[in-house]
């Protein structure tokens, strides 16, 4: 591998951007394809599918065998609200390899006793995202679960501006209609606001906090793996 290629991969990874290394195993020639460059690549369809799967592997194309080293940033889940649903959701999210953090300025909710072994940030979302929690990006899912516009709205605005692959908000249709109104007044575009999953979660008739957590997590996985219309990475699982 050329040192330039290795350097490019390391730069992309440090910047939390997806990239792939395409190696022709017959002659050893290689190229680095950054996420933004995939559509123009001769193997565009294959690369897009592989990127969605997040897994490295061999592919046959043009009568040759290529190895694709897939480099995808670790997917993060940021929960707004140290609430009952979040308590159920944290261990479930960890089980599917999401790196979770919980933000809630209400210190009665945000206690280590309620959230053992979870990064817990007892600050307002804007403060939390300006320091203790790394900035949001496309490889983040954000679920706003406090029911309190003072806490949820700034996080939703930050998530939509950062183009997080999943943005969900707890609340009834009526609550959401009021939220849409507020976010419009805050200057967000209708197409941005339309990306919010609300009422949050897949409709599986969930009742208990743990069941609601399942419905939220399933919706996040669907968005991540390309099952939903709003999938960020294109294509379905390989």
């Amino acid at each position, binding site marked *: *591998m*050329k*040192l330039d290629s*290795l350097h490019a991969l390391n730069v992309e*990874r440090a910047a939390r951007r997806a990239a792939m290394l395409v190696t022709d*195993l017959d002659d050893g020639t290689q190229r680095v394809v950054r996420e933004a460059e995939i559509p123009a690549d001769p193997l565009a369809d294959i690369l897009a599918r592989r990127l969605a799967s997040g897994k490295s592997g*061999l592919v046959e194309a043009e009568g040759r065998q290529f*190895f694709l*080293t897939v480099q995808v940033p670790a997917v993060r889940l940021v929960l707004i609200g140290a609430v009952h649903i979040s308590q159920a959701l944290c261990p479930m999210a960890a089980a599917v390899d999401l790196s979770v953090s919980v933000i809630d300025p209400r210190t009665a909710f945000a206690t280590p006793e309620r959230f053992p072994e979870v990064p817990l940030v007892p600050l307002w979302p804007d403060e939390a995202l300006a320091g203790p929690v790394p900035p949001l990006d496309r490889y983040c899912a954000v679920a706003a679960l406090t029911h309190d516009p003072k806490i949820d709205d700034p996080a939703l605005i930050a998530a939509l501006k950062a183009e997080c692959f999943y943005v969900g908000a707890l609340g009834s249709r009526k609550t959401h209609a009021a939220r849409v109104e507020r976010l419009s007044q805050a200057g967000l575009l209708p197409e941005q606001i339309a990306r919010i999953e609300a009422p949050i979660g897949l409709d599986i008739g969930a009742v208990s906090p743990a069941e609601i957590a399942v419905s939220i997590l399933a919706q996040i996985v669907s968005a991540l793996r390309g099952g939903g219309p709003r999938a960020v990475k294109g294509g379905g699982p390989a």
Partner: protein
Amino acid sequence: MLSTETDILNAAEAWRRSERGVALATVVETWGSAPRPVGSHLVVDEGGNFLGSVSGGCVEGAVITEALDAIADGRPRVIEFGVADETAWRVGLSCGGRIRVFVERID
């Protein structure tokens, strides 16, 4: 310290920038029970120092030897390890799996 793929690729770059000969080994295919997934890396320098793994330690020695050859001749190569009878206890995988490893010099 447990090294992640990030550490390994950063080490590969840092080692090469310090003018050492460096080779990178990557698991490109596995069959059956294999200890490390496809895409796992092992980086080796000309002195035989290494970071990462391509198996549970079963074939690292042989991969390092190939890596040193690749550093010397610059030729990328694909090597396969399995449980062929006579090699099962030398450079085979006692777990019963087979793996294919791509070894290349960093130029």
